[in-house]
């Protein structure tokens, strides 16, 4: 057993860190330090900087622009981005649709879509969930009917993240309504400018606009936009979801936010003393830090297994990542909000209303309640934490 990164891996970490320091736009970093989600422009600008360096698509094969990194290097890279903090390469392009096209797509599809995905020339979004198909995704009803050289799509998608920015959407649609529900689904790529697509914002409880409803009304898509075989889209969907190995753990992001929590707790007074001096607060914070340390080691175990044998056998440790990763992130967001006390109550950014005559709260406090509210989504999306437990019971416990 050897539980440490190798000297080469540590040198790589430094290389990544140096690159981020030299190239991450300071305004973007500051925006993220303040806990705000990156704007579209920030994400695009940063991904193009990474792409120029050859680092935008860490998980892709070298042939399609991947850097050829080991699992450890990929993890280090992700963690450094999260700790900087810097935007991550757009997941819909890089970790979701891209790998599906690489695995199941035709040569033409690869040449046409992959380079533009890597450079974020096209912003992709995910058309999976529907009003009647959440945890039971295979129950989706959106229909795609073949008419000549086209698919005609009708239906409704929901919870479509950042569809308002998107140029393209990858859609799961039912192409055989009489087959068993998993066996009549296809994976289809669709230009968001196609007539018949309507995007309607959903405003979430904190007031943000991240997710949308996307309506398809006789949307005609060229037949060549089918990825993989007709009625085999569920394989693509399973592959896509199974690819999500470390994304949910977000150890670096949680560590960065705990640091921030400690800075805030040291300067916030509670009963005339720094909040950091309150044993109950310290204890709550420490409990999360301990769990995060264990999660970090769990991630390492999964990486080590990936590097040794890519036998594709599921590792029970992976199932821990989603549940614990999200619980930790939610826990830290709650402590950050509590640390801000009443100043967390400011709704949104009051300066944005053009009334910044008075400083109504310390800058660091803005948005902390919003993030707390927003992050309740984490244990719901990507297969709710209850679905994760169902999967564990079936796959690992034999129940």
């Amino acid at each position, binding site marked *: *057993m*050897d*539980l*440490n*990164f*190798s000297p080469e*891996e540590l040198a790589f970490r430094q290389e990544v860190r140096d690159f981020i320091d030299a190239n991450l736009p300071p305004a973007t970093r500051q925006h993220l330090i303040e806990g705000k989600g990156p704007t579209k422009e920030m994400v695009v600008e940063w991904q193009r900087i990474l792409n120029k360096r050859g680092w935008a698509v860490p998980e892709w094969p070298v042939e399609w622009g991947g850097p050829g990194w080991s699992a*450890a290097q990929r993890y280090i890279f992700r963690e450094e981005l999260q700790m900087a903090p810097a935007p991550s390469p757009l997941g819909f392009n890089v970790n979701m649709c891209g790998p599906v096209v690489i695995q199941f797509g035709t040569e033409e599809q690869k040449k046409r879509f992959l380079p533009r995905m890597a450079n974020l020339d096209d912003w992709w979004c995910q058309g999976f969930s529907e009003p009647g198909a959440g945890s039971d995704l295979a129950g989706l009803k959106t229909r795609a009917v073949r008419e000549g050289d086209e698919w005609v799509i009708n239906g409704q998608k929901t919870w479509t993240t950042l569809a308002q920015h998107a140029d393209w959407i990858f859609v799961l649609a039912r192409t055989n309504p009489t087959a068993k529900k998993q066996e009549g689904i296809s994976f289809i790529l669709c230009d968001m400018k196609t007539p018949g697509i309507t995007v309607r914002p959903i405003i979430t409880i904190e007031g943000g606009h991240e997710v949308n409803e996307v309506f398809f009304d006789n949307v005609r898509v060229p037949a060549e936009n089918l990825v993989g075989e007709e009625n085999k889209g569920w394989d693509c969907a399973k592959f896509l979801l199974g690819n999500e190995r470390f994304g949910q753990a977000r150890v670096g992001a949680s*560590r960065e936010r*705990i*640091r921030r929590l*400690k*800075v805030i707790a*040291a300067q916030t007074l509670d009963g005339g003393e720094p909040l*950091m001096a309150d*044993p109950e607060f*310290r*204890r709550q*914070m*420490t*409990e999360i*830090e*301990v*769990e*995060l*340390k*264990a*999660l*970090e*080691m*769990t991630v*390492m*175990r999964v*990486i*080590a*297994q990936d*590097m*040794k044998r890519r036998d594709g056998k599921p590792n*029970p*440790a992976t*199932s*821990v990542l989603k*549940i*614990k990763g999200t619980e930790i992130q939610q826990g830290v967001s709650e402590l950050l909000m509590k640390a801000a006390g009443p100043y967390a109550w400011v709704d949104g950014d009051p300066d944005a209303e053009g009334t910044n005559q008075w400083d109504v709260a310390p800058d660091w406090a803005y948005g902390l309640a919003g993030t707390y509210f927003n992050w309740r989504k984490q244990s719901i999306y990507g297969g709710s934490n*209850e679905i*994760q*437990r*169902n999967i*564990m*019971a079936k796959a*690992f*416990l*034999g*129940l």
Partner: protein
Amino acid sequence: MDFDLTEDQSLLVDSVRKLLSDKYGFEQRKAYMASERGWSPELWAAFADIGVLGLPFAEEDGGFGAGLTDTCLIAEQFGRSLVVEPWFSTVVIGGAALRHGGSAALRQELVPLIAAGEVRLALAQQERQSRYDLFDVATTAKKSGSGWVISGNKGMVIHGDSATHLIVSARVAGGQRDKAGIGLFVVEAGAPGVTIRGFRTVDGQRAAEIILDNAPAAHVLGDAEAGLPVLEKVAAESIAALAFEAVGCMDVAHAMTLDYMKTREQFGRPIGSFQALQHRAADMLVAIEQARSMSFYAVQAAEETDPDERRRGISAVKVQIGRASRLVGQQSIQLHGGIAMTMEYACGHYFKRLTVNDGLFGNADFHLRALADEGGLVRAA
């Protein structure tokens, strides 16, 4: 980064596993516990034969020169079988004290005897008032001629009644809760002024109350006024091994629970088909995997050279392992139902050992407070 066992480690684990599967069934263990000593001299000799008694000691001292990881792997196997012999007290705890504090002469005298199963150690550190503070020591050590004499009461000395040599923390200088002025002394169990009263503990192991009345110390481990750093190092290594032992116990308790859920039928179906129970079993798996991860970290933390870093890391281990042990222990009883409440069923015995394991060298609550007081793990700047 590599979490796999080396070939040597695999061989070691296999030999231990084989011995335990032959000789350490639940009924066999009951017989060992019911014997006069409360453990089996036959097994003790077998442990000597396969080399686990001399494992962590340097080869030049007569040991096998294995690292902490190897010791931990044995602890995991011993946890799986709930071994009651004084291996932990002799090899892990006492062994660490001897390795980190003993002179070359003392090591060369004792290690071959330990490896042969003839010498057994126990750490007499706990006192009535000290609870989990290693530095809270009222027992005194006074110079007497060229040696020392020790006086005071030590409690909950794990396997104190079977030890041939006691390693006793005693105060040479300073007040009862001063961190300086504590020495670690080797007192032979048969020395004049030593009274030992053994008893059984709830996990089926043994412990002793020990009264020292001007008992002569044969040796002092290291600096007689600066024994606390050695004691802390001993605690850190022991905690790493205890973490592995707990993971071994949890794995078995969980596996027993899953087996039972698949076979026990109520309402005309196996109880494992009920989602409420499946989710509990999944939560146990999450806890065990996080605990296993933390046990790997424990080895790293115990070997950390900076004492403050080490203390923080080890406290984090204790918190995580203690919390997981409680959850897995309690839920394995709950999911079984009444059967696991019985003495004749093994599950409860794992629960009891996990409960005691949590308390050894400070329970999760103690270490959470300690770590929180030190500002946690993540640095603010």
